[in-house]
């Protein structure tokens, strides 16, 4: 408190104008009184004043001493310096503009990337004490994996482990009933894709999530209207109710106040809206805002076709809910994880089918931090964002070098001013302080303009990382962290680019500075040396950036030129999900066959087929192969399975080496058949002829005996980067759990021109089934290469920007050097030097600088790549870093 009061009183002190005059009067009074005393002793006034000055100090000096004693005077002189700096910068607008723009580029790029990092990695969920939240996750050794479950949700490799986030509902119930370390926990699951929400007869898409009753009480989210879920709402017996987000309330319902008890239809099920969440709560997933929450108990209603075999709520091997909890106070994360693991292990062991001759895989439970929300974005973009951060900090360094160079050149023209100040008694420290203040003004201006750049940059970046597959909604509103980062960057750059020139300037030798023209100042040589060093470092840094850009561009080119094994040109792709319109089983397959037939008949369509996954996408279905008479280690029995429609190989132009394509006769009642690829043959049939052989899938009773009827050339499936997996192609009608299909049309001309005809064709069969994810195969591949394209573009852009900055720096230092040598050059020419000789002389110097930069830059690039190889090797393709 006393500290606060003292600061307050000091600030008040600072703004008291009369203070200065008061001090003067007081001081004069003091000296006068002392003089009067002396005069009483008989001195003359003149002698008395002189004696007082000797004894007590002179008026002017004392005034200075007293005034500069407190920190107020420091603030005061800073303010003076600021005003002076501002005037100096206004006097040379050209210089100021160039400096501010280069700094703005550097600071803006850094702020933009940092704002994204902040939004994706650092921002906390706007809930009560977010640091107490924990996300439950399981982990198993990476080489074992988790098999034999009905698994819906994310899992990914992390170090030597496979980490996943979905659990069975029964595990959730046991954890909820028996744990003593969490003050609350809830389960949630996304309602796949966008759901149709009909309000007042109008349909509209929304992102929905199912959640157990305690979600809002555990998070501590409050309603702005109506009420939120309670446990009573999360029961099969309860009336279906839902909660909507503030954003959705405003967007869809115009924030109408009578929202409570409004009836809506979500995914063909009538619901009542009971309330709206508080405005800043956007959901649990970073980068995707939830519009509607429904109770988990309504899952059988809203996803009637998800799993026909068993109830999602009782089956221990159906892992589909994510679980989040709040730690009790004074319970550490490790303690809580250990306590929960004890409950989880038996439940998990029971659920996971053990395989003969193998130790059982027992996952262990861990607690991840959930305070920042959860999601794919963090996992997918954290490493790339940090690499981008590295790239842009290089740009900032180059910009700093550039500005330092310009300041050096300017310092020359200010030699006289500096000399004058020094000779009038300014200390060098004071001078450096003033020059640094000017640098800070420049940096702050650059930062201000940079913020504008950053604003554009961030929205550009977000649109770049949003693919057609899903828009990313991030709130990148600047918070304290971003503001702090930018301010810090400004000050850091100011010192970085300002210190060396300021130091050089303040070292100016007095006498020649006043007498002679600035060109021959004695520190000019030193300055030129420093400038050259800066240019060399700029060239080197730009080279590192360009090298990085080269790596990413090369990766993109290589990936684009990967042999996919099929013809990617002139293919139209779209998805149909008739289960949402009530189709099931035989009717569903019949619908798919009819669509295929209708599409083939369309004019302009050469051939049409379908597949369960888009050919190049993240999704890939896997099964464990059963092969009579062959025993391989279990981890080698996993194969990729691709359910396809009739004429798949003909339409995709995948060469069939032997056997036949699928056709309309391969229905669920026909003999089970399969086509395998070369990788499959190489792994399982290296010694015998696969044609006519019979294979089966583990834990798939319907497909125990399939005949191999064809061998196809290897074609990429899932990822462009991976080796083609051993793949079994299957007629979709003979595979289970096919709720939707993607259709592929081979067209004669532009595939997108077919879209209206395709829509009409599908509508003629059933107009209630909408098309989704319409794109061409080339677009799909572009989407799959999103990250690679992003990197190639950004790194290329920053590389070019760096090159531009380096050129400006080179130009600056050369024009300065040439100007300095004008008289020397004139003498040379007068003595008979040819124009060409002079040119050669200047160019040789330039070339030397550039060569020196290159000589440093190339090894530096290699070193930087090696240094970052652990992070970037995942982003590169077909490039050997060694």
């Amino acid at each position, binding site marked *: 408190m006393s500290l606060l009061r*003292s600061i307050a*009183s000091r600030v008040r002190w600072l703004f008291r104008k009369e203070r200065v005059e008061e*001090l003067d009067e007081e001081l004069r*009074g003091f000296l006068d009184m002392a003089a009067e005393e002396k005069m009483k002793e008989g001195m003359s006034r003149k002698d008395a004043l002189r004696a007082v000055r000797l*004894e007590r100090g002179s008026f002017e000096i004392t005034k200075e*001493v*007293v005034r500069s004693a*407190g920190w107020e005077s420091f603030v005061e002189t800073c303010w003076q310096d600021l005003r002076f700096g501002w005037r100096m910068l206004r006097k040379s607008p050209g210089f100021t503009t160039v400096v501010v723009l280069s700094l703005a580029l550097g600071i803006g790029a850094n702020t933009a990337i940092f704002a994204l990092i902040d939004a994706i990695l650092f921002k906390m969920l706007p809930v009560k004490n977010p640091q107490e939240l924990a996300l439950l996750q399981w982990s198993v050794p990476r080489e074992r994996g988790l098999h034999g479950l009905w698994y819906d949700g994310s899992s990914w490799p992390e170090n030597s482990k496979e980490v996943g986030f979905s659990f069975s509902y029964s595990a959730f119930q046991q954890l909820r009933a028996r744990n003593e370390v969490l003050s609350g926990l809830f389960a949630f699951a996304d309602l796949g894709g966008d759901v149709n929400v009909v309000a007042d007869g109008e349909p509209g898409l929304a992102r929905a999530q199912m959640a157990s009753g305690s979600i809002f009480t555990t998070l501590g989210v409050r309603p702005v209207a109506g009420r939120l879920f309670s446990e009573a709402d999360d029961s099969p017996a309860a009336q279906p109710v839902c909660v909507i987000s503030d954003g959705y309330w405003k967007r869809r319902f115009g924030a109408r106040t009578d929202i409570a008890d409004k009836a809506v239809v979500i995914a063909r099920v009538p619901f009542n809206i009971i309330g709206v969440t508080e405005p800043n709560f956007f959901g649990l997933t970073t980068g995707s805002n939830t519009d509607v929450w429904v109770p988990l108990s309504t899952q059988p209603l809203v996803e009637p076709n998800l799993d026909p075999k068993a109830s999602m709520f009782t089956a221990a091997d159906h892992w589909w809910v994510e679980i989040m909890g709040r730690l009790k106070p004074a319970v550490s994360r490790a303690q809580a994880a250990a306590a929960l693991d004890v409950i989880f292990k038996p439940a998990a062991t029971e659920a996971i089918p053990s395989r003969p001759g193998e130790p059982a895989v027992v996952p262990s439970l861990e607690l991840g931090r959930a305070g920042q929300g959860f999601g794919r974005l963090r996992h997918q973009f954290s490493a790339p964002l940090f690499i981008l951060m590295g790239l842009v900090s290089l740009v900032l360094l180059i910009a700093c070098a550039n500005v330092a160079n310009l300041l050096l050149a300017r310092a020359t023209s200010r030699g006289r001013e500096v000399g004058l100040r020094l000779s009038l008694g300014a200390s060098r420290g004071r001078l450096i302080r003033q020059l640094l203040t000017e640098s800070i003004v420049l940096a702050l201006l650059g930062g201000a303009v940079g913020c504008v750049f950053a604003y554009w940059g961030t929205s550009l970046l977000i649109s770049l990382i949003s693919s057609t597959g899903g828009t990313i909604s991030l709130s990148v509103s600047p918070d304290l962290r971003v503001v702090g980062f930018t301010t810090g960057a400004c000050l850091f750059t100011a010192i970085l680019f300002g210190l060396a020139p300021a130091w050089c300037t303040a070292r100016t030798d007095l006498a020649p500075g006043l007498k002679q023209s600035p060109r021959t100042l004695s520190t000019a040589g030193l300055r030129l040396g420093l400038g050259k060093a800066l240019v060399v470092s700029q060239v080197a840094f730009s080279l590192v950036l360009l090298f990085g850009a080269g790596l990413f561009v090369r990766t993109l080119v290589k990936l684009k030129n990967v042999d996919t094994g099929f013809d990617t040109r002139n293919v139209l792709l779209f998805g149909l999900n008739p289960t949402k319109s009530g189709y099931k089983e035989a009717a569903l397959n019949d619908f798919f066959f009819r669509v295929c037939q209708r599409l083939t008949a369309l004019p302009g369509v050469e051939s049409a087929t379908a597949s369960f996954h888009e050919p190049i996408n993240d999704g890939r279905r896997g099964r464990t192969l059963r092969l009579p008479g062959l025993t391989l280690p279990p981890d080698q029995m996993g194969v990729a399975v691709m359910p396809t429609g009739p004429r798949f190989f003909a339409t995709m132009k995948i060469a069939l080496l032997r056997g036949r394509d699928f056709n309309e006769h391969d229905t669920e009642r026909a003999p089970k058949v399969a086509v395998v690829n070369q990788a499959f043959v190489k792994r399982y049939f290296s010694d015998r002829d696969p044609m006519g052989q019979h294979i089966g899938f583990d834990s798939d009773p319907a497909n125990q005996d399939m005949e191999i009827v064809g061998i196809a050339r290897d074609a990429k499936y899932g990822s462009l980067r991976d080796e083609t997996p051993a793949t079994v192609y299957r007629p979709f009608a003979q595979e289970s759990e096919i709720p939707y299909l993607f259709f592929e049309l081979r067209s004669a001309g532009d595939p997108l021109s077919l879209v209206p005809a395709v829509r009409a064709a599908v509508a003629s069969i059933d107009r209630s089934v909408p098309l989704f994810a319409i794109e061409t195969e080339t677009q799909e591949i572009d989407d799959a290469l999103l990250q690679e394209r992003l990197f190639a573009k950004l790194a290329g852009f920053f590389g070019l920007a760096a090159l531009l900055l380096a050129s400006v720096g080179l130009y600056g230092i050369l024009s300065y050097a040439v100007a300095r040598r004008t008289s020397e050059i004139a003498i040379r020419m007068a003595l008979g030097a040819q124009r060409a000789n002079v040119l050669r002389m200047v160019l040789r110097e330039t070339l030397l600088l550039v060569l020196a930069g290159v000589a440093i830059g190339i090894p530096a690039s290699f070193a930087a790549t090696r240094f970052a190889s652990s992070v970037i090797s995942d982003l590169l393709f077909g490039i050997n870093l060694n």
Partner: protein
Amino acid sequence: MADKPSDLVQGTLDMLILKMLALEPMHGYGIAVRLEQMSQGVFRLNAGSLFVAVQRLQRDGLIRGEWKATENSRRAKYYALTAQGQKRLNSETREWGRQVAAIARILEAS
């Protein structure tokens, strides 16, 4: 003779000024003269040291200034101790006594 604060033990000037003002409110010159008299000429302050200290004390709220007429009908700023200043003086006097006694003990211990 010490006429610069740096020759005084660090921080003692503030304490001495507080002591002067505890006797009665006085103006800057008054403080200097009284200090000189009481120290029998050992401490002769110059204006700079005095006013730096006075400003510091005033800023910290230990003394308070007020413009008044002097006996020679000249305007001068009279300083008086605040309650906080009195408290500070007491504590510093106590501490000073303790330190001096300690130093004396050490020096006599030979």
